[in-house]
Every structure is written in C-alpha cells, then in structure tokens.
C-alpha cells in the first residue's frame, strides 16, 4: 500500500490547468504522474511515485553517500 517506485521525469506538461502533470518512465513504462507535491521538479529528475503522485525528488548525492559507506568497510579498500 505504501509501495512507491522511482521513475524518471521525461517531460512536464501544462495541459492540466489545475495541477502540474509529468510523463514519468518506470524502466520504459511511461505514466502520467501528478507533480503537485514536487513543485520544483524538472525534466530529468527521478521521483518516487505513489498512487499517481510524485512524493519526493530523489537526491543523487545522498544516494551516492549512502552507497559509499559500504565501500568504506570493504576489506579490500580499507
């Protein structure tokens, strides 16, 4: 129910006058997604999408920092 998956914004449309909508690709499957809760989102951003709404813009720098912590403990690299 709280399943939400990352997708890439391919484009933002102004077709819906009420709320910003975007075309988001989930590994090639493209869906219309409501961007009302990520007003700063732009084309090329990755967003987490839940029940038709983007709820966050994924932060690449933070993602890399977390992955780096694993390399820090790798016996071959420490």
């Amino acid at each position, binding site marked *: *129910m*709280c*399943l*939400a*998956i*990352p997708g*890439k914004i391919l484009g933002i449309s102004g077709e819906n006058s*009420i*709320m910003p909508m975007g075309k988001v690709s*989930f*590994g090639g499957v493209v869906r219309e997604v*409501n961007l*009302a*809760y*990520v*007003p700063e989102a732009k084309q090329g951003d*990755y967003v*987490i999408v*839940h*029940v*038709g*709404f983007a*709820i*966050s813009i*994924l*932060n*690449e720098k*933070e*993602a890399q*920092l*977390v*992955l780096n*912590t*694993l390399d820090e*403990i*790798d016996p071959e690299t420490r």
Partner: protein
Amino acid sequence: MKYIDEYRDRGSIEKCSQRIAEAVTGPWTIMEICGGQTRSIAKHGLESLLPSEITLLHGPGCPVCVTPQSILDHAMEIASNPEVVFCTFGDMMRVPGTNTDLAHIKAEGGDVRIIQSPMEALNLARENADKEVVFLAIGFETTAPANAMALYQSKQQGIKNISFLVSQVLVPPAMESILNSPHSKVQGFLAAGHVCTIMGFEEYEPIAQRYQVPIVVTGFEPLDILMGIDMVVRQLEEGRHEVENQYSRSVQREGNLAAQKILNEVFEVIPKQWRGVGEIPSSGLGLKSVYRHLNAALRFPQKIIYEPLSTNCISGQVLQGLKKPNECEAFGKECTPDSPLGATMVSSEGACAAYFHYQNFQA
C-alpha cells in the same frame, strides 16, 4: 534501473550483512514498521542473511490490514447500493468484512471499480453524473496526501456526487502503543521510509528519547533494509537511541511541506480504531468540518452493525509484533491467501501473506 538495481546488488548486500555480523555481540529484537518492508524481507530472504542474534518483528504498517472490520462492512453496504459507483485501491477487494468482501459485492452486480489513484474518483464522478461515487480512502501518511488532494479538488471544483469513506491511520502513535505494551520485545525500529518522505522524522525524536529506542528511517530495497538494520544494531551496541536516516535520498528531516500543507487543510488528528489492535489515541486523520459534506459515512449512514466473528486468527498479535505468522495454528491450513481468515493474509504487504508466498515457497 536507476535507484533500484544498486540496492539489489548481491556484492553490496553481502558486504552489508558481513558488516552486521561483525557488529553484533548480543541478541537484539528489531521491528520493521512498514508492510512494504516486511514483504521485501520475505521476498528477498533477508532474515537468512542476518546473524542468529537478530530477531525481526513485523509491525502494524499495512493500512489494508489495520482497516477496521466495521469500516469494511460499511463499505460493502454502500457498494451494494444500486445508486452508487464504489471505488477503491485493488488491495481492498478481498479483505474480509463480517460476511463478505468487495470482490463478492462486485460479482453480485455491485458497481465496484478498482482505481490506481484517488484522482480517478473525480473522473468517475464526472462520467457518472446520475450516480453517487464513493471512494474508500484508506492509508498511512504516504497515501494521505493523494487522498487529501482528491478531497481538496472535489471541494474546489464543487463536485456534488462524490464522497469519501475515510480510514486514515498514523504511524508514530502506533509505535508508541507498541512500546507501551508490557509484552513489547521491540528494542529498535526501522521507520517507514515513505511515511517519513511525507512527514519527515522530527516527531520520532521524542519517541526515541522517551523509550530509549533507536529509530532508523529506512527504504524498501534489500540493501536499504540491511543498512537500516546495521544502523540500528550499531546504536544498540553503543547504547545510543537516536533517530537516523538511512533513506536520505528520499527523506528530509522536515518532510514534504507541500504535502503537509494539503493534509492540514483537509484533515485533523482523531482517535482511531485499528483492526486487531483497538483504539489508539491521536492515531488517525478525520475530515475537518468544512469537508463534512464530502463524508460518505454521513451521506450513507451505516444501517447494519455486525459483531466481529470469532476465529482462530491471531492477526492482532501479529500486527503488534507479539507473534509471528507461522506461530498461528491456522497459518497455511484453514488460512491461506485464497481463503483468508484475517486481513494480514490478504494484503500483499500483510505479514501472513508475505510469509505464505515467500517463506513457504522457498521451503
């Protein structure tokens, strides 16, 4: 796929499980709150990658599972009304009420539609102007903004033939309820990453301090969950009890302010009944008075109140982390996903269904 494959990489997963094994010196019991995490743990066999000192308990974080039977009975009563187009998320179709479920109501001729987003309910209302459209709006904080936007837009657009049967639940009060139980074994929590994406994690900080439990905001992929466990274990080993954020690629301390603004516009905090658990103070969201006209519970008052049936189902204890699904006598026998006794066996994020689908399958 970006932001998925990196977190399913076998080498990284092995590194992380090795890191946990090196850190552990004592027995620790950790609860993952979210049903999505429970499903991921079962699906990827993560418990088998943990040292024997660590016990995972599965928490109440499946909104489908905790929706009270009385709400479901009311939903089915409304869905049986020939003047109503009833819509809900697919997860809700087979959750048992007292006598039946929404799938049976549909099979018997009820106009029950599965929708992917609450905003589709507004389209249904426009397309079915001669009918009343009712949306069963359930969920935790993750889903609440989508439901809130559907309510907000229905009011803004003056849609007359739509209403919402609301059963929204909140996670932090449930965590406190678990910790307040004298039977609680929980020493640390993995907090639900998408709930925190919306609400942030400031409200978890007094809980961590008051109950002296580490709380780590955690994502949903296998590596996320192992990293979250690693962070909880390190705190337990060092005698710390803080809120840490493993899921920082999605979660900020203050959460999603745009979503919170709509939540505050539409909802207010109320006491809430949880299926199998009972009432938890301040653990739900109800409609503010200016949205009263969109409340399906008022537009379609419940006529029949059933007494809950007595079964061998222990889902209430499973939801509170007091028992594991396979400790239930009915598990896999009289209770299966095809013939569930309780909601935890129905929802794909229910602990019982996760155990049945993945652990039985692997065995």
